[in-house]
């Protein structure tokens, strides 16, 4: 282990007084108290892989129940080219920069997962954001990287993007760094630190970053092929990085119970070394944490399976159907882990007040292969719950239904004809309850150019999957 771990538990280097100068909130609890109710959502919306002759777009969705256009897409920021596959996106700055005077949470970094084109959107006007700059794929390929995925800001104003492949869509992936002017700064890490890449999260006070693994772009882009799993072409590892140095300090192989670790989240409190990763194909949740007593007393991260979602028999299907836990998030108060079982059609919340022993609080059976609820307001759901977003106060959970265009076509072929939906559940965090809000429905089937898919969701002023504290 590097000497960086000696910093674990150190005092923050900046002032966390109430009146911070930069973006975001001083603490996770401040986000809960000071963050207003989400009145708009930005949602990745896509036509890639369909016959609709239109580019992908960022949808601005009205979430204000008092508005005349509640549950409607009130603006669309179209990308300049077709074929992007807008997927995940992030802000130029979040609460990890709350000490940076003058820095604002203003620009959305919106990568094309297939195109490797990176868009920068100026969201100064939260309701009418505008495309500002574009980094063309050729500029990205020069760094022998492709397939941009997770976007987080670095606390000094720069931006870090996980890249899943090399310029040919093969392994290894890596990380691309942008400067504060949204120009490519270069590769963040020395090449060769990892092979596969996917999502990442950092916990700066612990000087640690964790990254997960999907597969080479050429493997997952065309669709899911079980032969590729058997050939070892899908990931099953977590990498723990020295955040300052950009080097991998420890790799944990999650084994067969940990196939395809996707969304990875640390708890929000900057003191914590605890986090969770959803292993999508195995449909398990792993808890990871820094164990000071292990590794002959030198300390190391450990990971342990803490939730196992059983496969289910389907009368018309040949093999038991896995849940496919494709997204997870942690509530801002670090009390609950929410997740989606996309193939089964389930949204769940687990009490993680004891992170080693998650306790099922509630779940909803909605959409997907087995969901009890298959339509809302007469609208067929056609797919399971997928990307989640939770209100800062933890009282409203929203989700969309598209996973990835080619994978959607494989498991939910109607989604390309009918488009995705965004749904909502009311959460009672005090009592650990979820209730589907059937008055809420946003329908991407009604888009002017034709039915579109919908993927990741963000709020205008920080959310449970954007914000990190230093």
């Amino acid at each position, binding site marked *: 282990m590097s000497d960086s771990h000696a910093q674990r538990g150190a005092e923050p280097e900046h002032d966390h007084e109430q009146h911070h100068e930069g973006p975001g909130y001083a603490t996770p609890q401040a986000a809960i108290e000071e963050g207003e109710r989400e009145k708009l959502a930005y949602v990745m919306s896509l036509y*890639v*892989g*369909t*016959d609709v*002759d239109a580019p992908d777009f960022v949808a601005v969705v009205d979430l204000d129940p008092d508005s005349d256009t509640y549950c409607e897409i009130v603006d669309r920021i179209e990308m300049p080219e*077709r*074929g*992007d*596959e807008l997927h995940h996106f992030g802000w130029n700055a979040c609460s990890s920069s709350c000490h940076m005077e003058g820095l604002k949470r203003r620009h959305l970094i919106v990568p094309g997962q*297939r*195109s*490797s084109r990176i868009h920068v959107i100026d969201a100064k006007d939260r309701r009418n954001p505008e495309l500002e700059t574009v980094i063309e*794929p050729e500029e990205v*390929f020069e760094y022998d990287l*492709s*397939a941009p995925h997770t976007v987080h800001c670095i606390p000094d104003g720069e931006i870090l993007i996980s890249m899943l*492949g090399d*310029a*040919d*869509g*093969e392994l290894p992936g890596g990380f691309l760094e942008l400067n504060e002017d949204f120009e490519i700064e270069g590769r963040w890490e020395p090449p060769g630190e990892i092979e596969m890449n996917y999502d990442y999260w950092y916990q700066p006070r612990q000087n640690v970053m964790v990254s997960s693994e999907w597969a080479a*772009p*050429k493997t997952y*882009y*065309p*669709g*899911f*092929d*079980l032969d590729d799993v058997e050939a070892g072409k899908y990931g099953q590892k977590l990498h723990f990085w020295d955040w300052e140095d950009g080097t991998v300090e420890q790799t944990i192989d999650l084994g067969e119970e940990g196939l395809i670790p996707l969304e990875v989240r640390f708890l929000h409190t900057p003191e914590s070394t605890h986090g969770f990763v959803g292993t999508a194909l195995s449909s398990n949740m792993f808890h990871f944490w820094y164990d000071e007593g292990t590794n002959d007393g030198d300390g190391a991260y450990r990971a342990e399976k803490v939730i196992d979602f059983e496969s289910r028999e*389907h009368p*018309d*299907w*040949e*093999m*038991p*159907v*896995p849940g496919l836990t494709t997204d997870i998030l942690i509530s801002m108060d670090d009390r609950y882990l929410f997740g989606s079982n996309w193939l089964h059609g389930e949204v769940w919340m687990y009490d993680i007040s004891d992170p080693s022993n998650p306790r099922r609080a509630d779940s909803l059976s909605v959409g997907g292969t087995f969901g009890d609820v298959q339509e809302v307001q007469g609208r067929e759901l056609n797919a399971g719950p997928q990307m989640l977003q939770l209100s800062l106060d933890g009282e409203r959970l929203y989700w969309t239904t598209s996973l990835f*265009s*080619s994978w959607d*076509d*494989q*498991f939910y*072929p109607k989604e*390309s004809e009918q488009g995705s939906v965004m749904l909502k559940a009311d959460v009672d965090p005090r009592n650990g309850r979820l209730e589907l809000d059937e008055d809420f429905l946003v329908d991407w089937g009604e888009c002017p150019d034709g039915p579109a898919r919908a993927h990741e969701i963000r709020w205008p002023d920080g959310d449970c999957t954007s914000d990190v504290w230093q």
Partner: protein
Amino acid sequence: MSGHANDRSPSHTVTLEWPDGRTRTVAVREDETVLDGAERADIALPFGCRTGACGTCTGRLLAVDGVESEPDSGDAEDPDIGATIAYTRPPRALKDRHRAEGYVLLCLASPRADCRIAVGSSVQSELVENPWK
């Protein structure tokens, strides 16, 4: 029929066929891809990475010089994809079984003969099945 669309490069007549039976015919030069040729003719085909990794642009070769292809027939008379399609870089998104079945990546494929190709987003979805169903 094959010919010279301009002074620079020979071209071939490529007929694009959608699942609903609609067809469009374009002259595609040997120094451009089928996707480029279609775009020049203002025909919107699906595409993604344009590097051969993603398969979004997948089409399927139906006939070469008027001779119908029968995928998987093993018939030596079948049109030879290698003699019909030249790739500018390896079509990584396609497995060997896909190539044997006549699937081609239109973002990288340049014609070497007149041909007819099945196009549209549904062709890509033929590459993989739901493994549990």
